[in-house]
């Protein structure tokens, strides 16, 4: 996935926050999740079988993160930087094109 154009700005603000507490711990720059990658929490990861996929996009719609985007041929692509491994996509997929497998290092 391409780098966010705000990365430098977000990192600057994050540095500022680590140096100065705001009243109520308000974060004045939303979007910091772009650099706070949440995919590291995952225990299971979705494994995608392109041959079985009918491009119905149920996985794309249901992903709560949303960590699924589409490639040039409109097949789902999983962004493992943000996929938290909830398994909803696998559950929703009508053709069982997605299976959850244990994450290994």
């Amino acid at each position, binding site marked *: 996935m391409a780098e966010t154009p705000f990365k430098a700005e977000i990192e600057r603000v994050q540095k500022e*926050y680590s140096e100065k507490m*705001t*009243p*109520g*711990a*308000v*974060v*004045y720059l*939303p979007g910091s999740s772009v650099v706070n990658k949440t995919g590291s929490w995952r225990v299971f990861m979705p494994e995608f079988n392109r041959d079985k996929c009918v491009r119905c996009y149920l996985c794309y719609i249901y992903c709560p993160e949303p960590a699924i985007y589409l490639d040039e041929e409109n097949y789902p692509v999983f962004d493992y930087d943000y996929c938290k491994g909830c398994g909803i996509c696998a559950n929703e997929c009508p053709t069982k094109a997605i299976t959850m497998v244990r994450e290994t290092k």
Partner: protein
Amino acid sequence: MPIKKVMKANEAAAWAAKLAKPKVIAAFPITPSTLVPEKISEFVADGELDAEFIKVESEHSAISACVGASAAGVRTFTATASQGLALMHEILFIAAGMRLPIVIAVGNRSLSAPINIWNDWQDTISERDTGWLQFYAENNQEALDLILIAYKVAENEKVLLPAMVGFDAFILTHTVEPVEIPDQELVDEFLGEYEPKHAYLDPAKPITQGALGFPAHYMEARYTVWEANENAKDVIDEAFAEFEKKFGRKYQKIEEYRTEDAEIIFVTMGSLAGTVKEYVDSLREKGLKVGAAKITVYRPFPVEEVRELAKKAKVLALLEKNVTFSVGGALFQDFSRALINESEKPKIVDFILGLGGRDVTFKDLDEALAIAQKALNGEAVDEVNWIGLRKEIL
């Protein structure tokens, strides 16, 4: 010209809210404070108060709606009591941590079990560590005034903390007294419009509130709540002074009554202070050197004022309608903390009384006085004494 009306403390609280012009009121009815939102809903329905009145399905939702509204940048108000306040507990921490200047009127009531709808202070006392400011009213006028003062302090930039104002269940919530309703223009001058600085909802300037705080930040965030409580001490004094100038009624964190040359000082809060002042009068007539002190501001705890008070007496007799297990009453704990490192200190004797709406009579106070006098004479007494306890049925 201010007008005088005869009203219950619940109505006085509703009038205070009306005068403060909150934009959102969210409330769930609970005895004994039901009349507060009821009266406010009338003000809103009659077009006398331009606000959203949100009817919610529980107190947890009431305070959550207030947090949402306050985070969006408007003045908010709610009222509750007892189990209702306890149900808000989780969100009370959030409101303080997010530094949202919400004001709650609390009709001080006991907590279950057994179910009891009458007065003591256990509900608000149990929330003393949430970070909220806490004021206690002696009468219906104070209920109104302290709500206005609570807004003034809560919204101060050096404070930005939520505040609760307690007034005793039934003794005040359901008893009528003459109450002066201040002029709207003067209240407007006193409070000003609430202008949110750190918490607002503005699509042009998006912010995140109530976000995750990692160990690297959580402690500092908690410290700022501590610091804001410390800042509130001066801000409260300033607000009291300004209030007196504008409305002519004087408030102090600790109000002293006939403490000059007193040997024993009774310390209490809320409506019990009225009874105790009368009692002190009766003792003074008998030539006894006894005084009274009323805690109006309980959080932030007025440590300095307690130290000053302690210099004036040989025995401080704390009269409290709450229990802190293994300790006595919460005041006993707070007074001990304030005085522990003082070189000269009076004896502190703690009295737990009037729980669950039991009347506190002169006879009860005689019982407390007898123990305080023993302490004065250097005799050994219990640190914690339950007054009026029916030992025969135990």
